[in-house]
């Protein structure tokens, strides 16, 4: 399936804006500056997407995964290194940094909230740009497990993956935001943005 450059350009702008907005929310939360890489856009078949995500799996990371559906469906993933996640928690809770790899109930709840704010900010910005609406599910925490549930994705579809790296300045925390959208669902929306109502 060939995807026109102008459509890629619109999606890139939507992803850039969404991840940029998420960085503002994250920065407000931590009261620290966030450095962002320019997000990269990939287009994958289901097998390619699975393969890509499998390569991302790492026992040293904690992932917050949140699905969404509606005019645009897919899932957002925020990945933090385990100890980076702990540092985020200690920064937010204002208590000493912990080197324990386990996450307690309160820590899971907190890291889920951080992921929720980031993923919602990306999705909401994109929806506002395209004048569409999507519905978010509750966030889940995954430790290196499958971050894509293959039973809800279809091999017929093309998936768009927007990925941005972030670093919390002065805190030594780096992580990744991945936003996966079912491309076939959003193509009509891109057409509308590019050419108006035809």
């Amino acid at each position, binding site marked *: 399936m060939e995807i026109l450059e102008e459509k890629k350009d619109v999606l890139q702008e939507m992803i850039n804006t969404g991840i940029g907005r998420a960085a503002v*929310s994250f920065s407000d939360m931590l009261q620290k500056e966030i450095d962002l890489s320019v997000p990269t856009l990939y287009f994958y078949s289901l097998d390619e997407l699975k393969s890509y995500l499998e390569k991302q799996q790492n026992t040293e990371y904690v992932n917050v995964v949140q699905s969404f559906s509606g005019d645009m469906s897919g899932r957002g993933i925020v990945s933090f290194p385990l100890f980076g996640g702990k540092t985020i928690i200690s920064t937010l809770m204002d208590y000493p940094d912990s080197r324990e790899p386990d996450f307690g109930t309160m820590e899971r709840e907190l890291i889920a909230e951080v992921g929720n704010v980031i993923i*919602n900010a990306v999705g909401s910005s994109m929806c506002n740009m395209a004048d569409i609406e999507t519905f978010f599910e509750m966030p889940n925490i995954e430790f290196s497990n499958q971050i894509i549930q293959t039973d809800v994705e279809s091999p017929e579809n093309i998936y768009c993956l927007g990925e941005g790296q972030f670093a919390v300045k002065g805190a030594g925390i780096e992580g990744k935001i991945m936003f996966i959208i079912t491309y076939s669902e959003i193509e009509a929306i891109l057409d509308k943005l590019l050419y108006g109502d035809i």
Partner: protein
Amino acid sequence: MMEKKILLVDDSRFVRNTTKRLLIGMGYDSAYIFEASSGEEALTVYEKESPEIIFLDLLMPGIGGEAALKEIRKTDNDCFVTILSSNFQKPVQKRLFESGANLFIEKTITPEKLKEVMDTYEASRTP
């Protein structure tokens, strides 16, 4: 100390604690600040305490903030309800205002945003 009854509704303890800490810093009495971690619990606390101001999250286990807001508005149009959410999609905000929300604030809460809420609340009470 300002003795306004305020209800903080969020499934995240962090969000509730942060908002509460900021409110106390602004001079609000902690004894008048109540908390709920779900829409259902919010309705229970609301019935019991009749707060003047509610900070309401949207995405929570059980009934979410939107359903809780609609329930509150069935009997009370006076309580000042601020939606505090990271889901700032325009249709969502439109629907919430139609359902009776007074204000929508994007997460994360900051002292500036909180001041905006309280100033807007005070302005709404000025004849």
